[in-house]
């Protein structure tokens, strides 16, 4: 699989990732692991069951992973989602109204990346 082509297709930051993860092998290895990571599913499930605290954690995790792997659109969308869901002092989400739109963005970004990686892998 060509990393250049992948990152170009989903608008990722390949240069940055190479600087941090050092080898292309490691990048590929973790892209492979990313496909199997359950954080996204957890986000969707907990959102549907209205478990906002769990949804926050899942968005937060996605944001971290997105940043690590240079998945810029995913990172940005999930970061904004995490901020919207972040529990305030009373444990309520900071900005629940904004969440559905941000969730859609996160979903789009995620599906795009998964689509590209799967296609490149096969």
């Amino acid at each position: 699989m060509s990393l250049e082509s992948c990152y170009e297709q989903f608008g990722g930051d390949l240069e940055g990732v190479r600087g941090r993860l050092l080898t292309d092998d490691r990048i590929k290895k973790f892209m492979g692991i990313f496909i199997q990571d359950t954080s996204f599913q957890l986000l969707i499930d907990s959102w549907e069951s209205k478990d906002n605290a769990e949804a926050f954690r899942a968005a937060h995790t996605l944001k971290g992973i997105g940043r690590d792997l240079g998945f810029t659109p995913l990172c940005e969308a999930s970061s904004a989602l995490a901020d919207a869901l972040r529990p305030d002092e009373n444990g309520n989400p900071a900005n629940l109204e904004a969440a559905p739109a941000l969730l859609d963005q996160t979903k789009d970004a995620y599906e795009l990346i998964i689509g590209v990686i799967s296609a490149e892998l096969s």
Partner: protein
Amino acid sequence: MHSAADAKQTILIVDDSAMNRALLADMIGEEYNIIEAENGLEGVGYIQTMGSAISLVLLDIVMPEMDGFEVLAVMNKNDWIKEIPVIMVSSEKASSYIERAYELGVTDFISRPFDANIVRRRVNNTLMLYAKHRALVGMVADQIHEREKGNSLMVAVLGHIVEFRNGESGMHVLHVSTMTDILLHQIAKRTNQYNLTTEQISLISMASALHDIGKISIPDEVLNKPGRLTDEEFERMKTHTIIGAQMLDDLPLYQDEPLVKVAYEICRWHHERYDGRGYPDGLKGDEIPISAQAVALADVYDALTSKRVYKDAYSHEKAMDMILNGECGQFNPFLLECFQECSEEIRGQLGTTSLTDHSNRTVDRIVESVARPEYTAASSRTLSMLEYERMKYRFFASMSNETQYEYTEDPPMMVVSDWGHSELNSEQVIKDPYHDKRILEAFGEEVLEQVHDALRNTTPEDPIVRMDFEGMVDGKMRWYHFTAHAIWSNDDIPAYTGSIGKMVDIHESHQHMVELQHKATHDQLTGLTNHAFARKTIVERMEAHPDHTFVFMLIDLDNFKQANDTWGHLFGDQVLRYLATQLKDSVRDNDIVARVGGDEFLMCMELNTDPRAPIARIYDSIGGEFEGFKISISMGVALARGESADYDTMFRHADQALYAVKRAGRGQYAFYDDMEDMLVEFDVKDTALSAIDLADLQDEKGATK
């Protein structure tokens, strides 16, 4: 000491995202042993069980169950944070988060995105720093330990000799040593003039134990003379300085040991005085080594403040005055200044000195001076001993099929031993076990409440709780023996902080006990209660409820002898079993049905209503045929009302009523109350149980006629 080089170091990664853990583990590389925990609670569990076998923790902040800050709080509370470095890893960039993490004692903070080089370097740096630090503390502690071992031994031996020889308390050597140590530290703080290193001071305080070693050769009558010494005796006494020095000089080996050299100075010159008026050599000023000067002052102070054969103990203040006024000879004015400065510490320490304190104090002090001040809590020696204990504990726990646990009240958390958590099918670390679903299912609320209350009701003096209870394991109820030790804090008002304990499966032996108990209290043939146990139970019930009405029914199976004779004993046994079942079925579960003789049975029940109707119903329910043998019973009934009725009387009454029934032709029942008048004519011996055989005998005779 275990060094960093001899094994892979272990790094604990606590992060709820598997992806993050994998990424960090990959970046850290293979030269480390990686353990992963998926939430804070699990992480704390690892730290609790492995202790400082974990070299470093990488800790995420946002996690379920217990977040990173809570983990840090627990690590602080247990002082783990001092021994196990933590690097916080997080995508949180808010400075408040980072600040809080540092306040809670994290060593470093790595923010996302993870950079392989940065992660590796930070991990290596932190490990190096801590390894160096641990090694340093360890080395110092080991050295001190070696030396202190010798010191303690020497102090002990000399203490005994001195005690033995001149009736001084063995504490004198120890006091002199302690005070010398304090004085010299004070001097070292004020001046470099004497080149007093921590090591040098430790050596001098140890050697000070030998100051009076020469007294061994002074004759008893001089050494222990209660009155004033004559001039000649005093001259004799003075020689202990030279003799002591000579003894050290005569040592065939160790002449070059610094200890021996210092001890020589002390022995020879601890009676010299600053103005040159001491003995044996009349040295002046700083011609007297500082070691001997300090010991001399300590020797005088302790002699003044202790009771001797020739004097009482003076107070600390009085002794200070006497020394400062030159009543015990002149001392170095600078030394006296130092003495005044640390006099309170001396008074305090000498009041409490014991052998172990002494070692610990020196270790503390030296460790303190070379290491960071907050690291005096535990040396790596202590830690490695602790690790050894943990290893031992885990090993024995795994061998014994015992469930062992440690529980802390704050945070409410229980760590269960390996075997235990597989036995209980529970997590190894259980948050809030008193409300944990799995634990509640296994033991039930009532048992947990009992355990909880029992532990809280202990005292620090008597902290042990023992109890047996049932638990549901693998869907089966089994008996367990539970032993626990409540942990109380050392505060003035002790607080309950948790408990440690174990639970042993005693199901088989418990079952055995139950069976034995059953055998001892029941009739083997019919399975009914035996007479002794029935009596005990009834007496207990009557005593518990003296105002209740108890009905005694004594029953005899009619024509039983005939059944036995005609069809044999095996058949007889079957008949008895059949009747026993009928009797049991005729009353309530809680009523007592006992076999009290060959074919006699006792039933006892409590009734609040008029007993006649129920008795009639019971009597009528017995009957029918068993394989051709007609079941018929005779029954005597007695009623116990009020306190005058005791068991034996009631039994006898029922027995007499039964006798009357049998005399009247069997197959009926009668109340003792109804026949009281009639019964008067019977001899007391004429009761059913004593007369039945006789009656049967007569029947037989009648039949053969």
